[in-house]
């Protein structure tokens, strides 16, 4: 079953590929048989198998979106399922050498050494490495991969799976629902605070591979947790597809923060549906950094369904050559006294295009709701493009809504000032860009903040302000 692909050396830290060695790979293409096969290999219960097949029908019936970015994917030319190892390893040493090398290069074990609460690493379709601090497990915290959760926590999964994002939501949510594999499952019991971030890494190694992880996070009443994910893939000549679904449920008084640093290779279509439901006085925070991919279409959403619920969304997008970052956020105020705050920063460079697309919706009866949106964009050269498409829909008068957006280039005075202190123009630009995204970076765990700044510096290399 294993296939071999030539390795063409490292371009940067993330743009390397390991030899492809697989225990199992389903054939290319998408139909009922493939979906049934995935379900069979995973030994899934009947309801999940039916859920997948129903989702496939929905996927096939839905047209491609006509807005956003240009999607050029042949759905029949993709591997929907690859299994890299036989089983999930619990200690690092047990992992196959190739995968270990890959994750070593990504610095995942280091992350673990820094006392992180748990790490899940997903390689192709399956989660291959997982650990969870013992004390958390004792307090009833569940952090496992989605496949295991379906087997071991069937009641919990069945109660919530697909309730926040049903397959009918959009074409790619339907696709994910049909062929999902891996992803994280988190349950935090009432009143439990997970002090350290829970982490996951996703990586696509094979060419023409689709990755369809499915994440479900349930934070029970008065509990809190912070989940961090990073994504990478090497550069292949053909496009790959990443279509994840992330569902978050924040019960009364809960706090959830979900941080993503997305650094897919520049030929990945990253079409992700992320949505949270926030109940009374709950707080949901999305922190979203989009640096990689050919096209990202991702609009983390928060539905505030009970009074006092809050949403904070902070996002940074960097679109460089050949990239289109169509990212944004959605907040639905469906109850009184709910509030949301959105800060979006984007940078376009070398012909890249970044678009902010957002929705603020205040439903009738959501009195005393507040929403504030600020979008700032930097364009670094004359070949690049920046768009802002915020939608504001109000059905209630007793609210306070503010939206501001601006697009500009790096200020000449700022550049001059830094250069007058001895920096080159390129250094100065990089520094200004780093300052521009500082509001996001300072919200990241330390090692991600360092990484983020490094990635920005890489993106900025060779650019003259």
């Amino acid at each position, binding site marked *: 079953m294993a296939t071999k692909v030539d390795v063409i050396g490292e371009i940067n830290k993330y743009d390397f590929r390991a030899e492809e060695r697989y225990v199992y790979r389903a054939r290319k293409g998408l139909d009922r048989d493939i979906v049934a096969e995935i379900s069979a290999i995973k030994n899934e219960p009947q309801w999940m198998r039916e859920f997948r097949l129903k989702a496939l029908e929905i996927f096939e019936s839905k047209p491609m979106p006509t807005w956003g970015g240009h999607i050029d994917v042949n759905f029949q030319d993709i591997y929907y399922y690859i299994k890299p190892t036989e089983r999930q390893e619990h200690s690092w040493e047990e992992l196959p050498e190739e995968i270990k090398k890959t994750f070593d290069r990504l610095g995942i074990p280091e992350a673990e050494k820094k006392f992180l609460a748990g790490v899940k690493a997903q390689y192709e379709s399956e989660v291959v490495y997982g650990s969870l601090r013992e004390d958390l497990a004792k307090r009833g915290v569940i952090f496992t991969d989605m496949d295991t959760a379906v087997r071991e926590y069937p009641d919990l999964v069945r109660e919530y799976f697909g309730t926040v994002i049903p397959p009918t939501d959009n074409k790619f949510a339907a696709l994910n629902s049909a062929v999902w594999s891996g992803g994280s499952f988190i349950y935090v019991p009432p009143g439990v605070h997970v002090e350290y971030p829970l982490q996951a890494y996703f990586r696509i190694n094979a060419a023409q591979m689709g990755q369809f992880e499915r994440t479900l996070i349930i934070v029970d009443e008065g509990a809190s947790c912070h989940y961090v994910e990073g994504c990478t893939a090497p550069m292949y000549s053909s496009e790959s597809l990443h279509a994840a679904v992330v569902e978050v449920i924040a019960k009364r008084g809960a706090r959830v923060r979900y941080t993503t640093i997305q650094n897919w290779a520049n030929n990945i279509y990253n079409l992700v549906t992320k949505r949270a439901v926030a109940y009374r006085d709950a707080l949901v925070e999305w922190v979203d950094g989009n640096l990689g991919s050919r096209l990202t279409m991702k609009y983390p959403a928060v539905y505030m369904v009970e009074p006092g619920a809050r949403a904070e969304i902070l996002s940074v997008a960097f679109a460089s050559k050949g990239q289109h970052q169509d990212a944004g956020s959605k907040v639905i105020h469906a109850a009184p006294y709910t509030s949301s705050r959105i800060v979006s920063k984007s940078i376009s460079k070398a012909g890249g295009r970044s678009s902010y697309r957002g929705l603020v919706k205040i439903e009738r009866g959501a009195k005393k709701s507040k929403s504030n949106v600020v979008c700032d964009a930097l364009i670094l050269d004359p070949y690049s493009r920046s768009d802002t498409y915020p939608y504001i829909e*109000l059905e209630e008068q007793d609210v306070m809504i503010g939206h501001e957006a*601006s697009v500009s280039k790096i200020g000449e005075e700022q550049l001059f000032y830094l250069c007058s202190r001895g920096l080159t123009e390129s250094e100065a630009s990089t520094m200004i860009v780093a300052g521009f995204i500082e509001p996001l970076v300072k919200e990241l765990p330390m090692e991600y903040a360092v990484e983020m700044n490094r990635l920005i510096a890489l993106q900025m290399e060779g650019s003259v302000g």
Partner: protein
Amino acid sequence: MVLPDLKQDLHFTAEGFHTVILPRPQPEWARELRTQAFQAFQELPWPNRSMEEWRRTELRIFHLENFVCWAPTPDPLPEIPSALAPRLETAGRIVTLNGRKISSTVESDLLRKGLVIECLEDSLSGPHEELIRQHLWRLFDWRADKFSALHAAFWTGGTFIYVPRGLKVEQPILHVAALASNQADVGHTLIVVDEEAEATVVTETSSLDPGAEGLFCGGIEIFVRPGARLRYVNFQNWNQKTFHFARQKAEVAERAFMEWTLGALGGRLAKVNQELVLNGPESEAIVNGVMFAEDRQHLAYHTRQDHRTGQTKSDLLYKGALQDHAHLVWRGMIRVEPGALRSDGYQRNDNLMLSDTARVDCIPGLEILADDVRCTHGATAGRVDEEEIFYAQTRGLTRREATRLVVTGFFQQVLDRITIDSVRDALGDIIQQRVREYRSRE
């Protein structure tokens, strides 16, 4: 002109087109264009809510078959109500009824200097034919949707204003567009302000009968040539039973300036595209919008600020207030084309919600394809600030007076950008009359 023997009620149909529209005296190029537009009208689908631009606008209440494409002008002429006419000292006036001119005057000195205020259709084959031919439809995309095609196929009458090179017209030119009961106005307006000329043009719409239905399906093209200055006010004040579909577009050339104000008060359903094209270095435009909707009015305004070249500046401020079950839509876009360096674009939309059942959608937008630019937009919505009400109350104003004051102040900020005193004051007065008791507190 010999009219064909008119049967009753010719509608916007093939029969109507071939019986009364096509045979009208017009140059061949114009007739040819009409024919193409009519074909497009027949082919294009009716707008529906799956189209992004119509997603928020419900057209089901509109029935084209209720309107005729041509009706003779009544004799004797009815009295034309106008809020602005008695208050403006003008350089010239034109009054249209159902889109067709019933009178026009130009101050004799200006007439001698070449100022034209005329019926557009009549001018098609006159001394200005070539000028009109060069400009007509250049800014109006009649393939854009079914209403645009209808307009280009069926338009009659209309208004042509030409301000010759270097002529500075101090006082406003007033166009009162009136609509009789159950009639349609498909008039086209063409305004050309030639190089280094200056003028102020005010269009006011007015329904003869406050309770009768009406249809406006019109287009306005405005050319502000190099170095020219135009202040243009379009004051849409139909009754609340009128359907208003309008496309207006202005092209502002190098070193030219335009101040463009839209008042949107009337209409049962209004769908307007207002487009500004800055097409030359140092062109500049200020765009003001005042929207006030009540009862079940639906007002949808789509604005666009196109920066085609560098060193251009646009500044848009739209303010809307709504009460009862009204629905306001404002969708704005600033587009900066590649290479349009040192463009400065601004757009802002503030909304005041005066009832629990009103609804507002505001969708600002930026598409920036050049780097050395400054583009900003802002939008706010909410109800009247209780702290402001309290403050005014501590100075002896009743709650109602305080509210009215705050709402008036809200609009004053945009009215203050209008540099024509008489127009500003008249608009302010009309809005003040419309601001009724604000009943919300509970």
